[in-house]
Every structure is written in structure tokens, then in C-alpha cells.
């Protein structure tokens, strides 16, 4: 691994991953709305055009279907395009490209063509972004076989997972929890804002490394319950576990697809209780799949019904954001409930 480590925010870690890959592989191109000269609305691509040149990192028309469609064509040609969708809420015009094309190309062509593309996109709530800058559509992609869906929760993972995504031969949706771009957030809105400095996961190698897709991380070991979370909710979960006083194990899935089923079942088999936490709406959310998998595989180890803590089944609200997003207290209450059974 070249160079040492330095303290990075998540956005800096993502920028570093792109920088490393642009330098390392001439087939990597980075593009999207406002990502070129300006460096992206969240600054993820800041400085990349200046360092690597106009044809390596450039702006695109405001046409998400066209962005992903062109990326697929480039991928089929043999490049490794990294497209940014400015907010994941804007990805829906490209849904057909992702579902009907990127996810199916290898299969339907008998392996003649494939789409080794990475689609990065700021994801999730907590920044008072209203409905169109806050949603969590991971279930829409998890349901589509042929796509991989990655959601990091800290700077170290973000860089390692993004590099692994770019190097992966399948299409990857890389969703970046924007609330924790600049610092961790435990769900308590009134508290002093924190930045990443001093957090052990903010010590990020300068050079190339990967975090494998499909491997969860045990963030906190515990023996009485298992909490499954990803993205911003990993930090909320940690605060909720502390608030509850329950000795819960916290698993950061990191990767929705491929899913680390072994880490999940091993933990629930040990603890006998499972609480699933995500900020996406609950009904038919990814928590439903997790719950079914745990029930199918760990039923005889379960001491209590599996609990889900999730966003309410409303559109993402503006003024009520903190009422909508699961906070530590809701998780703590769910943990208390499963401990009663």
C-alpha cells in the first residue's frame, strides 16, 4: 500500500478512492452532473478534473437515464465508468437502465457483454433535504438480481468499498449516506455536531486498498441481541444500544447485495434476538428480507420476535424529519421490548 494514512472525512475518503483509481487505471472515467470543473455538489470529485484531465472527470447533461446508459455502453466497450447521480432520489429516471440493461446484460448475452459500472450517489436523510434529497431506495435495487448495492458507514470503509466496487465486474450501486459525509451522526439532532477527526475509522490509507463487497463488520460485540444496520443508522444503533443498556451485538452490513448471511446468522444464533434498523420506509423495506432470512435460518434460536425499526410509511417529510428518522430512543425501546420476551 503506497503512502501512509491520514485523517479523512467520508467525502475526502471517497475523493481519495476516485483519485487513486483514476491514477491507477486509465480505463476509469468519472462523470455526472456538476462533477467536473466544480467538483460535485458535495465536493466528492473536487480537484479530480484538474489533476487527471478533462476527459477523465467531466460534466454531463441533466439526464440520468442517459448518464447510466452511456456508462453501460462504455462498460460494454471495456472501460470502468464511475457515474455520479447527484442525489439517489434522482436515480429513478435511470431505473430502466439499471434494471433492464445493466443488471441483465451479462445474463441475456450469455456473457458476451457486461456492465462493470459503478453508480455513486448521495443517499439517505438527516440534512433537512426534503423529499427529493433524503430518500433511501436500497430495497428497489436489492430486489433486482444482477445489481450489487453497497452502503458504507465510515471513511475507511467508504474508500475501500468504493475501490472494490470500481474493480468489481458487475454493476454496483454505491450509496453514500450524506448525513455522515463530514462526521458521524447518532440521531440526536440537538447535540454538538461532530466531525470525523479522532474517529479510528477516519484514519484512511492514502493509497490503494479494498474492503471486500459482501462482508459485514461487527462494530460492537454483544451477547443478548443482534442489531442489523447500515449507513447512518450504524451510528444511531450504537447510541441506541448504549441508551438501552442491553448488551447487543451491532452488525454493520456494509453491503446489501451481496449480503453477508453468515455473519448475520452466526450472530443471531448466539444472541437469540434480532432488531433490524433502517431509515427507509418499513413496509416491503430491506428489513423485511432480513427478517425473513433470520426467521428461516435462526428460528429455533430465537427467543423473541424479530423487531424492525424503520422510517414511517410516509413520503419523506421536511419539518418532521427527526420524527420520521429512527433515533436511538426508538431502537432502545425495541431492544427493551425484545428483551422482555
Amino acid at each position, binding site marked *: 500500500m503506497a503512502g501512509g494514512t491520514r485523517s479523512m472525512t467520508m467525502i475526502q475518503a471517497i475523493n481519495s478512492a476516485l483519485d487513486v483509481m483514476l491514477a491507477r487505471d486509465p480505463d476509469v*472515467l468519472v462523470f455526472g452532473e456538476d462533477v467536473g470543473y466544480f467538483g460535485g455538489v458535495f465536493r466528492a470529485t473536487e480537484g479530480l478534473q484538474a489533476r487527471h484531465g478533462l*476527459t477523465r472527470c467531466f460534466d*454531463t*447533461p441533466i*439526464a440520468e*437515464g*442517459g448518464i447510466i*446508459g*452511456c*456508462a*453501460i*455502453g*462504455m*462498460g*460494454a*466497450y*471495456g*472501460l470502468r*465508468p464511475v457515474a455520479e447521480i447527484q442525489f439517489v432520489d434522482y436515480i429513478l*429516471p435511470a431505473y*430502466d*437502465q439499471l434494471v*433492464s*440493461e445493466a443488471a*441483465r*446484460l*451479462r*445474463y*441475456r*448475452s*450469455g*456473457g*458476451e*457483454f*457486461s456492465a462493470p459500472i459503478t453508480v455513486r450517489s448521495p443517499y439517505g436523510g438527516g440534512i433537512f433535504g426534503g423529499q427529493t434529497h433524503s430518500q433511501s431506495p436500497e430495497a428497489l435495487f436489492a430486489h433486482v*438480481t*444482477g445489481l*450489487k448495492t453497497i452502503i458504507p458507514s465510515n471513511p475507511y470503509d467508504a474508500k475501500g468499498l468504493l475501490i472494490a466496487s470500481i474493480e*468489481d*465486474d*458487475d454493476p454496483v450501486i454505491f450509496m453514500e449516506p450524506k448525513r455522515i459525509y463530514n462526521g458521524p451522526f447518532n440521531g440526536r439532532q440537538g447535540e454538538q455536531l461532530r466531525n470525523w477527526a479522532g474517529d479510528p475509522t477516519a484514519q484512511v490509507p492514502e493509497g490503494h486498498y479494498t474492503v471486500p463487497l*459482501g462482508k459485514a463488520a461487527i462494530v460492537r460485540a454483544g451477547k443478548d441481541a443482534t442489531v442489523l444496520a447500515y449507513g447512518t443508522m450504524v451510528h444511531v444503533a450504537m447510541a441506541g444500544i448504549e441508551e438501552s443498556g442491553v448488551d447487543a451485538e451491532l452488525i454493520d452490513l456494509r453491503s446489501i*447485495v*451481496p*449480503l453477508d*448471511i453468515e455473519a448475520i446468522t452466526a450472530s443471531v444464533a448466539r444472541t437469540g434476538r434480532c432488531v433490524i434498523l433502517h431509515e427507509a420506509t418499513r413496509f416491503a423495506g430491506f428489513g423485511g428480507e432480513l427478517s425473513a432470512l433470520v426467521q428461516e435460518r435462526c428460528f429455533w434460536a430465537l427467543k423473541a420476535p424479530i423487531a424492525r425499526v424503520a422510517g414511517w410509511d410516509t413520503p419523506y417529510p421536511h419539518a418532521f424529519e427527526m420524527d420520521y428518522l429512527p433515533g436511538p430512543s426508538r431502537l432502545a425501546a425495541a431492544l427493551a421490548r425484545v428483551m422482555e420476551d
Partner: protein
Amino acid sequence: MRNDRGFSLHIPEPSARPGGVPDFSHLHLEPAGAARRPQAETPGLEMRDMPYRFIRVLDEAHQATGPWTPRIAPEILLRGLRAMMLTRIFDDRLFRAHRQGKTSFYMKSTGEEAIPIAQSLLLGARDMCFPTYRVLGWLMARDYPLIDLVNQIFSNEADPLRGRQLPILYSARDYGFYSLSGNLGSRMSHAVGWAMASAYKGDDSLALAYVGDGTTAEGDFHEALTFASVYRAPVLLCITNNQWAISSFSGFVGAQEAPLASRAIGFGLPGLRVDGNDFLAIWAATQWAVERARANLGPTLIEFVTYRVAGHSTSDDPTKYRPGDEANHFPLGDPVERLKQHLIALGAWDEARHAALTEELDQTVRAAVKQGEAVGTLGKSKPPVREMFEHVFATPDWRLVEQRRELGV
């Protein structure tokens, strides 16, 4: 100011329904040789008239005429004729195979064979076409093995696409033929992306995308044109305007208001409108666009005016929505007949040789179908079921491994 009578909603209707007499005057055709031929390097803005012109080379006497007359060796014309005849015979034979219950679906390209065949012969081995389901001729022109087509159509054990795709949704990378899909327009931006990649790498591989008239209504079409224009991608964007999208006539994409080639104008691109049943005109227009792309001047939009002689697919009966004899009223004739007559006029072909070739190709197709039937028709033979679980990802994840075991394959 109030409109006392209120508005009235316009719903387009074709000139004739079953029993009526069709009128194609809205096509505003020009005689062969009439359209000017700008230099390929001409700026797009100076060619804004071209989408409203009509490029046609073969005249009523089957002679090549006018500034667009291409120089093509008679051997190439004969190859083109052969591929067109083969495509038509193959289509007829496999359409019948569907009627005999040997497969689930088929689509013919009857009447439109000249377009992909001229282009396939003209473009290079490293160029990539992003097809529609009505450009089988591209593969025929490149001698793609008929048996592979038949096996794909029968979804049998020897199907090169391993039983995964609806009949005729081929993929043939080595023949410059990108993977087909049943949805419309979504590969047009892939062609643009491919061309952008080629330009980025300093390669000389062109992309050529086909869409039908119906697909010009899709957002994908307009996004692809935007990207092609913005990045000056070396891509040929081709509309095969065969007048019909299943039962909806081209009035439903606004073709009565303006020629589809005129969509180019708003993107600052050259737009050509070409006789799609005239092998020589297709060749000439394509060559012009290729020359322009190779000079790094970017994309060209070409509308080929043609006619879908058959139904949309095996699933519709065209006599239910258009006059049964409409093809006979279409003013651009039949592309096979026109090229045949041109070759005869050149002295390079005659009726006897044509009849002999028809017989030979019919035997060739029969033999290929028989060979495919020996492997098995749909439902009688299929690839190993475990193939169902392959190629979902580069490497199957645990779900697919478990599910394959669950199915016991």
C-alpha cells in the same frame, strides 16, 4: 379572449384503415437524384434543409442517378442481394416454424432488409451495431451461422444464449452485434457510450444504433441525441421508419408534423432522410456519415423511410388495423426487387441466376432448420437447467448457489 367553441382534441388517424385506400403523400418524397449532397465536413447548421430532402439513388428505371450515387463493386451488390434474399427466406421459414408450434415467438424484417445489410457490409469488423429486433440482415450480411440463429429461436440445448432470451433477441459480439432486448430505445445511449469510449481511447471503432419510428417518442432517444451531440461521439443514429409501431401509425410519433430526421436540427446534428428500400442510397448516406464521424465531426441522424410489410410479430394480425394491400401502395417498392432489377440493368444478374439462388438459399435455410430440429424445438430440448443460474453475476453469490441446490441441478 375566449374561444367560444372550446378546444378540440386531435387524435391522429392514418390515411386508411382496413378496406380503405392508403395515401402516403405525407412522406413528401423526391425523385432519385434530386437531393443535394453536401460535403461531409459541412457544419451542421448549414445542412438544416437536409432532413426535409429525400436521398434516393435508384430511379424508376433501376438506374443509379444523382450526386449520392455510390461506387460499389457489383460483387458487393450481389453479396447484398444474397443476404437480403437469405433474410427474407429465413424469416418466412421461421415464421412458419412458429405457426407449427416449434417456437414461442418470431418477428420478420420483410421489406426492411436493405438497411442493415448495406450498413453491415459497409462498416468494419470492429464497429459495433446496437440493433433493433428487425435488423437480422446485419448478421446475414456477415455470414453468421444460420444454425446458431435457429438454435436460439428454438431455445434448445445448442442455443448460444443458453435458453435465456426470447427468440430473435440475439447477441453476437464477434459479428459487431450488441445484445438485444425486448424493450425499446434503452440501447441507444449504450451506442453513444460505446462511441465515447472509442473516442476516449483513440480507437477507430464506430457505433451504429438503430431505433424504429415508434421509439423516437421515448425519452431515451432524446437523451441519446443530447449526449451524442454534446460529446461529438462517433456514432450513427439510425431511425428505421417503417410506418408502423404494432398497430400505431407514425402519426403517433409526430411524423405527420415533421420528418423524423428533423429531430436532428435541435441538436445541431446533420439529419439525412433516405430511401430505406434503396440499397445504394442507404450505402451512400451511411458512407457520408461514416466519413464525417471518422473526421471527428461526430454523429449523424439518419431516417430510413421504409415499410413494415409483415405484422409486428407473430402475435398480431396487421389486416385488423391497416389495409391488407397497403404494402402495394407504399411508394418505395420492394428493396430486394429494386436491387435485383438494378443488377440486371447493370448486366451483372439475370432472372435465371436469381431463381437458382432463391432455390439454393431455400435449401440452405431448410437444412439449417432441420439441423436445429434435430437438436430440438422449444420444449423438446433445452440447455442444462443449471445454466439458468449462470451469468447473473460474474460469480454467483450464495443465494444462487443455494437456489440451484434447492432445485437439484
